[in-house]
């Protein structure tokens, strides 16, 4: 890790993560603050009239009568995913393949620092952003739960578990986006491959949830690992899953570093 490079990355690429962090803090705080009003309106009656598959797809089968269930349905099923997909894929792309494609990586490599140190710095920066956004989300909920509503309604343990598994799932997405970013010298190619794979994962997950018959599709998507409704139920073994996800992302990051160390850089 190179301190000077890390600080420069924060300065030049930190805006995206700052806005996303602040944005999700506000959204989260607003959802928690709004929950008591919504809970009083018997939303569950309305939901019961909807088809089962649809409810499952949007993690609504638990109903909206708990704050956790509400957040899972309203935030973690879509906004959260889109937000972090955009962050993970874009950042990985900006940190490596863009610099290689445009040639400015030359100035970094032409200093007495090994490629390994340069690439590790970039990896740490991408994870910093992911953790920063996740912490903003958690803080948004905690602050709102503690001060904006009368009685605290958040089931803390489960809520934190959702965020930890979510963060680790996206660490894997960051890692494979990084891998493609290291593999391809063409910025657009790297971006389109990691974006397409992630979107395919997302679609497989949604389709698999909507239809019982297509449930098997979910075995082929990374988002199978992140099932906020089930974590909320307590039916997910959080520890082994966390270890698995962390292991996968470490493996992919190490692989990217090896590729970057050995490749020819046309810069």
């Amino acid at each position, binding site marked *: 890790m190179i301190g*000077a490079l890390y600080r*420069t990355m924060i300065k030049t690429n930190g805006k995206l993560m700052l806005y996303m962090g602040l944005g999700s803090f506000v959204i989260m705080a607003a959802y928690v603050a709004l929950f008591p009003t919504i809970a009083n309106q018997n939303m569950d009656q309305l939901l019961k009239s909807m088809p089962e598959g649809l409810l499952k797809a949007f993690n609504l089968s638990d109903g909206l009568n708990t704050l956790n269930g509400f957040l899972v349905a309203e935030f973690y099923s879509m906004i959260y995913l889109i937000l972090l997909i955009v962050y993970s894929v874009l950042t990985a792309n900006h940190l490596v393949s863009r610099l290689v494609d445009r040639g*400015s990586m030359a100035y970094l490599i032409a200093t007495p620092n090994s490629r390994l140190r340069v690439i590790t710095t970039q990896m740490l920066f991408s994870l910093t952003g992911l953790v920063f956004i996740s912490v903003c989300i958690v803080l948004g909920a905690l602050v709102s739960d503690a001060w904006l509503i009368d009685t605290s309604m958040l089931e803390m343990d489960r809520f934190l578990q959702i965020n930890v598994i979510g963060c680790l799932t996206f660490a894997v997405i960051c890692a494979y986006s990084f891998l493609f970013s290291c593999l391809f010298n063409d910025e657009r190619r790297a971006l389109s491959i990691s974006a397409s794979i992630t979107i395919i994962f997302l679609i497989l997950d949604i389709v698999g949830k909507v239809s019982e018959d297509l449930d098997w599709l979910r075995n082929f998507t990374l988002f199978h690992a992140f099932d906020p409704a089930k974590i909320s139920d307590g039916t997910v073994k959080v520890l082994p899953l966390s270890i698995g996800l962390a292991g996968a992302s470490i493996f992919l990051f190490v692989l990217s570093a090896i590729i970057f160390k050995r490749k020819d850089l046309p810069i």
Partner: protein
Amino acid sequence: MIQLEGLTKRFSNGKGIFDIQFEVQAGKVFGFLGPNGAGKTTTIRHLMGFFHPTKGTAKIDGMDCWQDAARIQEKVGYLPGEIALMENMNGLDLIRLICDMRRLKDRKRRDELIERFQFDPDVPIRKMSKGMKQKVGIILAFMHNPEILILDEPTSGLDPLMQKTFVELLEEEKIQGKTILMSSHMFQEIDRTCDQVGLIKEGRMITVNDVAEVRKQQQKVFVVTFGSVQEVEKLKTADLLVRHQEGSRVEVVIRDDYPLFLKTLASLDVQNLDLHTQSLEELFMHYYEQEGRS
């Protein structure tokens, strides 16, 4: 100081560089000359440790350019051929970043260079002109006072005045005993500063020679306009190579027969005399022809 031995890089399209061999001794200035696409940048990228050779080795100060890339950078200043500075920051931020990445404490040289090239470091990089970016590149390459300078087409993008400033800078570095390798596709650019010249074409070295030798071998084409066609006939009786004639306007190819050329012209009615700008191939026809025959 810089040694290339049988350096070969074959790209998947069959192009590349083949069996590049030369040595730049400490304190010498080496001009790496070749038309665009000849393999100059590819060779330089091996020296910088960006490319892994298919065969052969590139060494700087005894260290392998691929294995010891990071250590070599302590001694090397590099100016890339394409100026692609990081965006979203201003010039000074980038200079500071590279200073820090080099753990460079002494900022005197850096400020001196900024002053010398009259460069406003606070301008955001994306608003800079090509010439300004080139100045940032020069500062990044020279600010740590490196022993070895590797410069890929260093004067492209600079206006004539700045080119002059740059050549002066190079001459000072040379006096200080720096080892310099600079590439160019124009002989005039390296003629003044270099001790040695390496000619490359289509990925292969054509010759490595002292600049004085090469200068002797280069041919120049003068365009002479005479008062009448009869004058041309008189010129033709002299032992000079007339390449092309168009009425009273002729192109004369001169390599080292200047005295004869001047004497002949002095006795004729010359109305205009011009130097024809030539490509490298024309300039070093002699070498290229030799290469073709062998």
